[in-house]
């Protein structure tokens, strides 16, 4: 029976269900990924931010929250220019991190 509306899935991030296998793989390659303190310097300096909403801070966060699809769409316009690496106060090598993400994760977010 169609009532004209339906149940919507929750937007809440359930950390119990987040698959961390790939993130652990990433962490093995990029131990510094844990060092992000979400200051947002990378986002504010990113030239791709205005085009695809790229934000390294959000990328790191989204990966830990199992939102891989968001990551791929944010990274769509990353130019690998290295500004985020330059400004990161925690010295995270974000450029290599980006390349590693491109190697580990897949476009369909799987």
């Amino acid at each position, binding site marked *: *029976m169609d*009532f*004209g*509306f339906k149940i*919507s*899935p*929750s*937007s*809440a991030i359930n950390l119990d269900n987040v698959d961390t296998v790939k993130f652990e793989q990433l962490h093995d390659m990029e131990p510094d990924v844990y060092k992000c303190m979400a200051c947002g310097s990378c986002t504010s300096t990113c030239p791709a931010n205005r085009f695809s909403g790229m934000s390294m801070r959000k990328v790191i966060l989204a990966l830990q929250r199992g939102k891989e699809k968001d990551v791929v769409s944010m990274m769509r316009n990353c130019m690998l220019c290295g500004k985020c690496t330059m400004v990161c106060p925690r010295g995270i090598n974000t450029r290599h991190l980006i390349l590693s993400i491109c190697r580990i994760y897949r476009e369909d977010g799987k």
Partner: protein
Amino acid sequence: MGKLYDELLKDYRAKEGLKTCINCGTCTAICPAAEFYRYDPRKVMDIVQSRDEDEIEKLLKSDFIWYCGECMSCVTRCPRRNGPGLVIMALRNLSARLGYFTCSEKGRQLYPLTRILTGNILNYGYCVYPDTFKWEDHKESGPVWKWHLEHIEDTMARVGANFKGEGPGVLRKIPRESLDELKSIFDVTGGTERIETVEKFSRAKAGEMGMDMDDYFRETFEHASQGHLNSDGD
């Protein structure tokens, strides 16, 4: 007219609800709307407290402020004694007054809501009344409700209601003089003016959308675009 923020702060609900937000997110964490809509009450608070006129105007014209269910769960938990739910009410009030509500799909729903609810109050003295609670518009009310409506004299009598009767009791007929008093209250407190404002802006919007008011009613009452709920577009 003054600046939007100042205008907003004239509302007692904003006065009560907006102190200083520290962006801790306690409100969003338990917000039923944040869980299913693309909505974050913390951001609403942050925008309002930023006093950024452009952002506040955008907010007033957006769907964002219409997602709240006014359950007030946020009020319980805020460590700074804010009431995001109250601020939302003030924002909606302002949006309705200024006619900004017609700029968003969820805002435009104010038209059917006003027609149904104020109609019920002024005609019957109830917010919800069987004569206007049609099964066709509320299929979820189930076959029981359909049956109940079809035999309402009997079902009401069976449980001892005073349906449309004189004197006190369940769903009694509210005396004419009381309804007149309600109308008078609406007239002096701005209730009538609000109904007219909503009507006026909705009429303009309906014209813009090329609809007559009945179509506009159905459209705003029934239509939900993609992108509001979290499930949309994923």
